[in-house]
């Protein structure tokens, strides 16, 4: 179809969990590929790994700066894409790869892993470990509407994607501490418990109405802060939740 957007998928130091989450849209993924997306390169799903010119490049994994190929690939990804999306905690924040100290066979010298935003400009973040199939689906549909939709659809997609673009501008570090510094310390926490639900490693409990983090368990994926209704919330957008959900469902029929 002529109206498809071209998408590439650069796979760096990530566990393929993000790819699995994308694939876990099942029929939805097939509809995406069928109607909206021309997948130009993807190590596992397309068996093409050389980086090409695309509208949107999705990046899974962090960059090992001792791995010359990885460094070249992330730079080339940026040069050849209009929009770069950091998919998952590793690409966005380093996530579990932040804890790496090298010493692993067969490349023991590979010890320094950086979120991609430390080497290139990133446009959109999708935090979390793993990011959820539904979050990836919603962002894909919105990205398509932004590039190919009507004026009204573009406005909606802009509203939807703006907070994820602001997350990308905010920085390359994430931690449960963000809930402390950006929410509780700012007098914004109302104890709903979203952060505790979002945490993939159950590092957060709610004690006497406020989040309590077991910081040694935190893998730095960024899910808690991004899920918090007091990190970002567009009142106009969220008021339209029923219509937006219906539009996304209809798009994937």
């Amino acid at each position: 179809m002529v109206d498809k957007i071209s998408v590439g998928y650069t796979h760096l130091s990530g566990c393929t969990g993000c790819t699995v989450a994308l694939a876990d849209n099942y029929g939805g993924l097939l509809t995406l590929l069928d109607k909206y997306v021309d997948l130009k390169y993807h190590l596992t799903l397309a068996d093409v790994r050389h980086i090409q010119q695309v509208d949107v490049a999705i990046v899974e994994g962090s960059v090992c700066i001792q791995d010359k190929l990885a460094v070249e690939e992330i730079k080339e990804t940026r040069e050849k894409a209009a929009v770069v999306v950091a998919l998952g905690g590793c690409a966005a924040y380093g996530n579990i790869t932040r804890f790496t100290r090298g010493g692993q066979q067969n490349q023991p010298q590979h010890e320094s892993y950086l979120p991609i935003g430390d080497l290139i400009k990133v446009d959109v973040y999708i935090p979390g470990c793993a990011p959820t199939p539904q979050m990836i689906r919603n962002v894909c549909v919105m990205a398509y509407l932004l590039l190919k939709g009507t004026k009204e659809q573009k406005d909606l997609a802009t509203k939807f994607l703006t907070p994820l673009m602001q997350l990308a501008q905010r920085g390359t570090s994430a931690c449960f501490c963000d809930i402390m510094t950006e929410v509780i310390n700012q007098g914004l926490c109302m104890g709903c418990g979203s952060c505790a639900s979002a945490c993939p490693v159950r590092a957060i409990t709610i004690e006497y109405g406020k989040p309590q983090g077991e910081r040694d368990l935190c893998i730095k994926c960024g899910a808690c802060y991004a899920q918090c209704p007091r990190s970002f919330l567009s009142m106009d957008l969220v008021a339209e939740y029923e219509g937006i959900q219906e539009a996304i469902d209809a798009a994937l029929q």
Partner: protein
Amino acid sequence: MRHSSEVIEMGAELGKYKTCVSARSSDKEILKGAQDGGIVTQLFAFALEQGIIDGAIVSAASADEPWKPEPIVATTKAELLAARGTKYNISPNISLIKEATRSYGLDKIGIVGTPCQMQAVRKGQLYPVGLRDVGDKIALAIGIFCMENFPYQSIVQLVEDHAAMKLEAVKKMEIGKGKFWVYGKRGQVVSLPLKVTHKYEQPGCHVCLDYVANLADISTGSVGSPDGWSTVFVRSKKGDDIWAKAIAAGAFETKPIEQVKPGLELVTKLANEKIEKNKKTLEGRKTFGVAKALRNPYI
């Protein structure tokens, strides 16, 4: 970036709704321990019985501390009945929303919460960052009117220090007619002027611009209706469908909201009071320091 003063337009203070009525449960047993009209308990009991939900996240009483709410997944009417009544402090109901689909295995979740918790539910559906396979399992989200909430320790302070009652000896708490009411099991009643309670409020409540849970499927609260009745807003398609079934099954007695006192006029007044007050707080946050702002959560 939008200015906070533009976030809520005038006339939008009650949110979108399809119908609004004054209602109470037609089940005597539910009404007996209900805060007002027993709407939440009755709706969940009906939805459970009909298979509309598999269970509901509600605020039960903590086993360890009196009047401390503890979110639970209720899957029987007995559990719902045990959780009746308002506990005026924070119950982190959203903390169970993923777990309800995991170890409890629910495919159709009911959840009750304050307006901010309904915002969390809808954000979780639009941006399910860490909520895999949760969003489409929310079958019924009931919102409760909320002016503000309190930390548990504030309730201890208010009841034990200001009202001089033991929390264990309290039968019911209520905010109404400009006062915080504490009813003792032996029949004693103490009321505190809200002037006393204000400083104990949860700070995070002061940036909230929603009084009547605009984002719930159905929202309810005592304000606007006579004693023993509740005001009910039916908002979403899902809510409309479930409410129609509950009415057809005779689960509720209803009266047109136009025919009850004090009616929607009071709801509108209180909603605007809350929104105006908190807009001022948001405005003040912009110039809180010297050329330094506190963070605005609304973008």
